[in-house]
């Protein structure tokens, strides 16, 4: 995973609550492999009309460069667990999403792809949103180590972040490799669990009886 230390760019305001992952990446694009990229499909049906033309006025359209920060409302990333929603944001060039709240699974997915998800104090959020609306070209710098967000024309704001997420993002850690260092502990746990509840291990196929759905 690409480490996140600092990022600089502009912001875009998507002033909507409940931006679901079906909006972020419509299901019909999810057959793509990771290497094909998802950036062009980000928010596809909001960005483009049925003929494939850009919708004028949509915050990601008509820009010289893609934004580095996306600012949105409450419950961002709700719905389907599809990690492609994060791929679409990252591939589009977005490094930071600032929202009034994030859906649970989306936040987990973001953290594992180097996408920083921030929730600011309500007044700070509103000031940032208003500033981006008024001056879309205003420069924004996010410093993860210092936990600060600076937007030209506004006082710097600090943000909270879970220390584990911060460390993972800063170092771009490979979580699987880290966990496998604890393989001995995992094996011990599994052996104890099997001894305590041997029936938990599924029996081989074809040894059972009824498979009917039943109405119970």
């Amino acid at each position, binding site marked *: 995973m690409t480490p996140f230390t600092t990022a600089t760019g502009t912001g875009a305001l998507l002033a909507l609550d409940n931006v679901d992952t079906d909006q972020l990446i419509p299901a019909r694009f999810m057959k793509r492999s990771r290497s094909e990229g998802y950036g062009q499909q980000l928010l596809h049906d909001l960005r483009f009309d049925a003929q494939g033309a850009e919708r004028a006025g949509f915050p990601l359209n008509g820009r010289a460069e893609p934004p580095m920060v996306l600012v949105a409302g409450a419950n961002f990333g709700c719905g389907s667990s599809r*990690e492609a929603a994060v791929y679409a944001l990252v591939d589009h060039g977005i490094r930071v999403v600032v929202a009034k709240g994030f859906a649970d*699974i989306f936040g987990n997915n973001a953290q594992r792809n180097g996408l920083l998800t921030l929730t600011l104090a309500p007044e700070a959020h509103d000031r940032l949103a208003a500033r981006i609306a008024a001056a879309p070209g205003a420069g924004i710098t996010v410093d993860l180590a210092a936990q600060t967000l600076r937007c030209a024309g506004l006082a710097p704001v600090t943000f909270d972040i879970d220390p*584990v997420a911060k460390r993972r993002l800063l170092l771009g850690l490979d979580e699987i490799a880290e966990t496998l260092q604890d393989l001995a502990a995992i094996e011990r*746990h599994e052996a104890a669990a099997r001894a305590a509840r041997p029936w938990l291990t599924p029996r081989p196929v074809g040894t059972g009886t009824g498979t009917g759905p039943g109405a119970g």
Partner: protein
Amino acid sequence: MHDAATAGPRTLVEKIWDRHRVLHRDGADLLSVDRHLLHEGSHHAFDRLAAAGLRVRHPGLTFAVADHYAPSHPDRAGPAQAVMIDRLAANTARHGIDSFGLGDARRGIVHVAMPEQGLTLPGTLIVCGDSHTATHGAFGAFAFGIGASEVAHVLATQTLWQRPVPMMRIAVLGSLPRGTTAKDLALHIISRIGTGGATGHAVEYAGPAIAALSMEARMTLCNMTIEMGARSGIVPPDAVTFNWLAGRAMAPSGADWAAAVADWATLRSDPGARYGRAVTLDAAEVAPMVTWGTSPEHVAPVTAAVPATEPDALDYMGIAAGTPIEGLAVQRGFIGSCTNGRWSDLVAAAELLKGRRVAVPLLVSPGSEAIAAQAEATGLAGIFRAAGAEWGAPGCSLCVSMNGDRVAEGERCASTSNRNFRGRQGPGARTHLMSPAMVAAAALTGRITDARQLPRADLSEIAK
């Protein structure tokens, strides 16, 4: 909470969590996974595994099924769907994972088929790269959806890192009125607390209205818990659970069964267990619910009018504020999905459809091959066909619209699925979520209709 050193009363989820804790570090727990469920969307995770040169650590605890891309009708799917299904077959074969592919009698939607096979058991920790994994909580399992990176992590380690999860208790008193279902209850709860009302929480259901629910109704309710923003929903296991599981192909049997039930019977929250949030509702207030907008929280009883609070959503839906929900013309209906594609859902719809004809196209996609086979054997499928409905093959079908099934732009669809998001059923599609009986009623009249007003056939001979 969840600190191994903490004594005192625990919730059911905390007890399951404690059973699965491998180690605690930096404020997070490494939890072992009992069942890892896969579908075609797992291709990113398999790619990641291949890139790292890793193998699947416990293929015997991993089960796959083709559902998201499985066509409900062969003519509607193309080569792209076949590629996804073949990719799952190749990935699972390479790693020795039991996979229910096309043609397998065990196949179905992952959250329907895996419980049917007896793989979903009380007290287990179950994950799947699908948000509706919350469904399995109906059995007293701690079950939740994860993303592709976490799927790769579970494939490689059979574990998952989890930060402590806040607990929420939703108690439902009284009993559901005639003509209302678990779907209506779920939408009623969402109407009260919103789609962010349980964000990140492990929801535990309690109260007499919950205990009275059938196993399938509990699955519907836990399934929709994700639409409240929750990580999981759980119903404490009881005799309803045990009776449903007895004799399932991969459930414990013989002496194992007795030992398992003895263990499961202890799976209860302790008196005095603490919840960060608690909500109490009266089931008597539940009415047949219908969504009118583009979020599950845009929902009201069928007897209500559309409010003026969400102009963007109403614009997308093509509805004026103040319009009565009942009477809205629909162009098609859909019965199926991991929310409402089970046996009792189909029976509830067939009770209205028997001996009548639909006014608009109705697609029925049973939740699994087992349900489809039972419907053929009992004549239930024939009732749908005689009513003019299309009886499709099992799969995610029109709920997820990545398998060839699609609602046309601007069309209004009465649907038993779980999400009325913009474009969920196809670009420009307008989705109204409701129960199976309500979809049957809408299909019969061509309008959103209060199913309580229509006669129902007695299908008790078929349904038993």
